[in-house]
């Protein structure tokens, strides 16, 4: 019986979407920690961002299922990049979460499907906005790890 192999492009798309989904799972978990150390307007912002990641997660899961893929499941718990003991630490964690999600969406932007590429670009923009808000400043190349691109100063 002949087996049908998935086309390489589809495999790349699924891989990129799964990576983004894994990052979204981590962000949803991480924002639970972020919110625990915030209050007032910052907590409201964290809650809004948490919901945004849940929505993105659900979108990714739907896209994967429609492509015949089993979405990667969330882990029971995640190791945080650093310990959080304060609101400042919580905001720093939010920045890290958003940066990691942005990097994952850069992978989605690299696929050849126009629809998926545009989805990745939209989500990259959204996560860059959230990161800038938590960071308190903008960066030149959201999603690219620091130093990955030479940045001019002037």
């Amino acid at each position, binding site marked *: 019986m002949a087996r049908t192999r998935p086309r390489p492009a589809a495999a790349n798309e699924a891989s990129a979407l799964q990576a983004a989904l894994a990052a979204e799972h981590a962000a949803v978990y991480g924002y639970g920690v972020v919110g625990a150390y915030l209050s007032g307007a910052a907590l409201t912002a964290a809650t809004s961002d948490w919901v945004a990641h849940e929505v993105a997660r659900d979108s990714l899961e739907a896209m994967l299922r429609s492509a015949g893929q089993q979405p990667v499941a969330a882990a029971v718990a995640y190791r945080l990049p650093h310990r959080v003991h304060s609101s400042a630490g919580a905001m720093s964690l939010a920045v890290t979460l958003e940066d990691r999600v*942005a990097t994952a969406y*850069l992978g989605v*932007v*690299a*696929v*050849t499907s*126009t629809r998926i*590429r*545009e989805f*990745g*670009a939209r989500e*990259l*923009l959204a*996560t*860059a*906005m959230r*990161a*800038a*808000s938590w960071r308190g*400043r*903008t*960066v*030149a*190349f*959201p*999603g*690219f790890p620091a130093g990955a*691109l*030479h*940045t*001019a*100063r*002037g």
Partner: protein
Amino acid sequence: MIARYDAVVRGSGQLAAVLRPLRAEHRAHLAQLRSRLIVPPAAAARSAAASEERSAAAAEERSAAASPSPAAAAAPALDGASGRGSSDAGSGSASHGEPADVPAGRAAAISFLQGAERAAAATLLRKLPAVSPSLAQLMASVAASEATHVAALAAAGGTA
């Protein structure tokens, strides 16, 4: 974009401290997009001349940092066009030469920049389907950065 920022700073020096970091990011965008310029085959024989042009462009950029007025005129087209030479990418009448007149007043000037940022980001996003994966990543990242500039400018006194 660089020319627009320069024009606003010329008209309102008080905004310089706010605008300088954003302008620096546009310079970084320009440098990255320029580094990915594709030279058409017909121009290969003129590679030496092209190399000289690039050197000149780089020199222009250096002089722009010191003396902002004339040198950045070419920036909007390159920045928005992502190295593809499209004339619509610089968002509006500033694609060639000096940017459009900056409206008077701090809030209006910031709104002027916000509009330019939005237009530049939208242009980049429209071009995504037609470019290579690596260029798409760069263009999407630049568009995302420009979108964050709109919010940063709002914090500086523009509109949200």
